[in-house]
């Protein structure tokens, strides 16, 4: 799997959508972590779930 890259403008957009106004320097600092997260999100999207995979939020508390 290749490492996804993300440019500064996209980082800025993502932060704004989430309600944050981070500086370009702060965004540059998180770029490696965001690229790592995108790699995991790609892997998540590749998991074969089938039709019956209902999401859980916690263990079946009794």
């Amino acid at each position: 799997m290749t490492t996804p890259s993300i440019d500064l403008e996209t980082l800025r957009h993502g932060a704004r959508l989430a309600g944050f106004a981070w500086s370009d320097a702060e965004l540059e600092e998180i770029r490696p972590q965001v690229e790592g997260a995108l790699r995991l999100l790609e892997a998540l999207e590749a998991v074969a779930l089938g039709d019956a995979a209902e999401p859980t939020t916690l263990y079946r508390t009794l």
Partner: protein
Amino acid sequence: MADLFWSSMTELARLIATKAVSPVEVVRVHLDRIAALDAGLKAYITVCGDRALDGARAAEAALMAGTAAGPLHGVPYALKDLYDTAGIATTGGSRIFAQRVPVRDATVVRRLGEAGAILLGKLNMVEFAYGPEGLNIHYGHTRNPWDRAVHRMPGGSSSGSGAAVAAGLAPGALGSDTGGSIRIPASLCGITGLKPTYGRVSRSGVLPLAWSMDHVGPMTRSAADSALMLGAMAGYDPADPSTSVLPVPDYTAALTGDLKGLRIGLLRTFFLDGATPPVRAAVEAAATTLAGAGAVIDDVDLAGVMRHAAAASMPIVASEALAYHADLLRTRAADYDPEIARRLRVGAYVTGMHYVRAQQVRALVRDAVDGALARRDVLLAPSTPVVAPPIDVREVMLGDGASDVRSALIRFTRPFNLSGHPACSLPGGFTDGGLPVGLQIIGRPFDEATVLRVADGFQRLTDFHARRPVLG
């Protein structure tokens, strides 16, 4: 009683109940040990010396009056500094909360107090519990007590809990575990740490990292002591709607020492195969020891689903952590450890779709572990693939390739935060260099009794949990 600080909680409770030793002496011995060693270890953020001595004197008076409080009467313990304590600062390992003084105790703190336990102090941790290495730039990096020459990671995020218990600065402590934060420091520091089933122990009054993944539990020097603490903490709490109404069994009574006929699944693929050679050898030797006591061991292959655990965990933890920290990140960003701020900010790039998809994969992980346990009593695995790395190490070589150290440390523990199953780390051996190896036992939901029974049975057959680091 020179070595009273190495006594177990079980033994201290017995000595105090029979008036062989005063709780005041027990507390004083531990406070003296903290004063002598903690400048080097940096296990504590706050030491509650006067308050602990007052509590010990009250416990002594109650004992003389025949009104002992409970099974932990007069026994000291310490708390990871994310449990609310009335009148005592609860920092979460952050300078942002340095002046945060709760007005009431967390539910489990209240319950331990009702059982008679005496709080020694609040323990160092990774800032806001977000990391497995056990480092903290605000309160100092806790030192792993097993190496005097090299500054090694204690493991985190419950770093102070691991180091304090291993070094005799507390006979037991509480940690919290979102991806392994009880079991990782237990593994690296050579102690016993239990992450109970999600819903077994109240999280009310405990600072969250990720609500749906957070678990709280004991960190002690033996499975018997974890059983003692868990029995005092567990049970339904109306203040935490995720807690179960299932009755709390007598965990201590479950420690029969009998392992005959227990069915134990050895998690070989992904787990054992991913461990470094000394860890793999120790876990295989542990399986042989358990088999020698009559347990029936077979191999379990969950690699197919476990490979998705990292991808499922990240969106959940990142989203929930950012939800808690969003306001603080807007107003106090400069006061975070820059590395912790970077980890938190990543959550902004996870969508709702990813969060839900991660919860779907989480269900697959849970069902796979349930399936493996349908025909077995417990599963066996390494707790961490490596022993304690030096604090400046960034990458380690595992059994199946190179990995950054953070990912490596949480690789074997994180799946059971996703699934919610109870899991315990205990000392399973030592390397030739004298560093502890963590053995992990995973059980069925709400069957902590069997997990502890196996851990205690193993500790009756071995002396790894009884070894002590050389300090001072």
